């Protein structure tokens, strides 16, 4: 047992609180409840994603918000609201508590006085995917799962391979053959079996699902298990803390599968139920997609409840090449509820924004992150955001993963 784990356990004993207030799983569609002590994927009755629920009434009585602030940094300091029941099963590589950086130069040039970026590239394996996979792999370990499989557009594969290695689980990954080389190699070096697919993540998902059913692998596809969202939602907790328990006005989020967007909205629900927020004002959520793959934008414009499958998806932002998210209806629900919007941006504008973030602010963003800067420029044009609003962009990963787009 590591010194870190020992000190963590000592602290838990001192504080006399539960490691987690996880109470059950609940279907996001039909509301059926399931035990968190058993392995579940998605709802067998209506095939909607399952969502983890916590005993927030008890947590409200027993957890001190300001005590959490004093804990060592990292995602697991919010352990009461994460699904892992035992410290031994927390698989960590140091994820979470990424920097919230003010973008002064870009903000000034755009006439925005409170523009920020949540810099997720400092997570292990260089992307926000570390959060979700840390939670999912930890819970898989706790539930006795030995081998995990994932279809990925890129960064989720690298993150899963790393956390699976750390947990001692076997990992199998299906990814499109044009996935950035860094994602392929980081997965392979961590010991994952990698299969390159002639297609998109939707095709990879079909193959992963088949292998999971036929050979007993546990499928960690986005929203086909309940726990990746729990890791991602902590981004919402961190934002609330950073803004002194008042949420920002606008969150601009690159949206492929939508785990982070849905997760943060869930975090805000939980924080409100805990009574930790100073007011009930919520951010307007902005989903950013690429023009070459914009199913959420199309559905939003049509005021639809579900997305149509996007044909011929193409964009340099590989994380946005998701023709239809399994949780599309939840993304759309949260956009509508937050009075948000969905925006599509071109690859050319993404590359331009990537260069601008690097030259003006020193941030080498992933194309998905750069897309958020492009999106706010579009929103300024239509007067959708105001100069003094507190706006948070999400850079979901490191531009270093995508060097193939910058070769001469």
């Amino acid at each position, binding site marked *: 047992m590591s010194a870190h784990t020992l000190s963590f356990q000592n602290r838990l004993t001192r504080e006399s609180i539960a490691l987690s207030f996880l109470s059950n799983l609940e279907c996001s*569609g039909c509301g059926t409840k399931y035990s968190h002590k058993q392995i579940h994927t*998605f709802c067998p009755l209506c095939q*909607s994603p399952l969502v983890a629920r916590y005993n927030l009434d008890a947590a409200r009585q027993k957890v001190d918000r300001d005590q959490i602030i004093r804990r060592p940094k990292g995602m697991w300091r919010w352990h009461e609201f994460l699904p892992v029941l035992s410290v031994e099963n927390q698989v960590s590589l140091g994820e979470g508590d990424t920097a919230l950086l003010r973008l002064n130069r870009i903000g000034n040039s755009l006439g925005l006085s409170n523009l920020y970026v949540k810099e997720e590239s400092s997570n292990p394996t260089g992307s926000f995917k570390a959060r979700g996979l840390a939670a999912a792999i930890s819970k898989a370990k706790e539930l006795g799962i030995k081998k995990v499989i994932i279809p990925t557009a890129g960064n989720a594969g690298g993150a899963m391979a790393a956390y699976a290695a750390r947990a001692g689980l076997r990992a199998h990954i299906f990814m499109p053959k044009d996935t950035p080389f860094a994602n392929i190699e980081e997965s392979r070096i961590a010991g994952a079996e990698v299969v390159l697919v002639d297609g*998109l993540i939707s095709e990879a998902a*079909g193959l992963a699902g088949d292998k999971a059913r036929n050979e007993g692998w546990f499928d960690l596809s986005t929203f086909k298990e309940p726990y990746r969202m729990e890791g991602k939602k902590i981004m919402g907790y961190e934002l609330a803390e950073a803004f002194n328990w008042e949420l920002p006005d606008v969150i601009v989020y690159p949206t492929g599968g939508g785990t982070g967007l849905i997760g943060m909205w869930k975090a805000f629900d939980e924080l409100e139920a805990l009574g930790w927020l100073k007011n009930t004002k919520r951010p307007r959520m902005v989903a950013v997609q690429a023009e070459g793959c914009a199913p959420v934008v199309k559905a939003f414009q049509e005021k639809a409840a579900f997305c149509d499958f996007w044909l011929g998806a193409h964009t340099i932002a590989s994380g946005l090449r998701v*023709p239809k998210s399994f949780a599309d209806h939840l993304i759309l629900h949260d956009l509508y509820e937050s009075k948000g919007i969905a925006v599509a941006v071109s690859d050319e504008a993404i590359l331009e924004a990537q260069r601008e973030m690097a030259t003006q602010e020193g941030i080498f963003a992933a194309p998905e992150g750069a897309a958020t800067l492009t999106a706010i420029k579009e929103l300024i044009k239509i007067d959708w955001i105001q100069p003094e609003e507190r706006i948070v962009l999400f850079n979901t990963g490191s531009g270093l993963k995508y060097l193939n787009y910058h070769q001469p």
Partner: protein
Amino acid sequence: MGHKILCIEDNPDNMTLLKRVLESRGYSLVEARNGLEALAKAEYEEIDLVLLDINLPDIDGYEVARRLRANPKPNLAAVPIIAITANALKGDAEKALNAGCNLYMSKPINLQELWTRVETFMSATK
């Protein structure tokens, strides 16, 4: 409601699931386990909508869609077809739409979405 849905699906578990959700909404289901059986049933049943699994044991779902679209009966040739696949391969969606399907969905299908989609087609044909 009384609308009739032709459900072409060779997997008994999937058929049971679809039957449960659609019958609970008041639709009546005509079941077919393969493509040729489906085409035969479509000839004598008054079908309002088709749920079409692409991976079938005899002719594939694309061929079923093409034959339905070429049917001399105007109602059958224009019947809404929702294509469903389990193991989506590159270009499956395009192939389904080119074969005459109105909508493409990949498994696992959110049953609330399926019901919503079916309702939309039904209200358009009322």
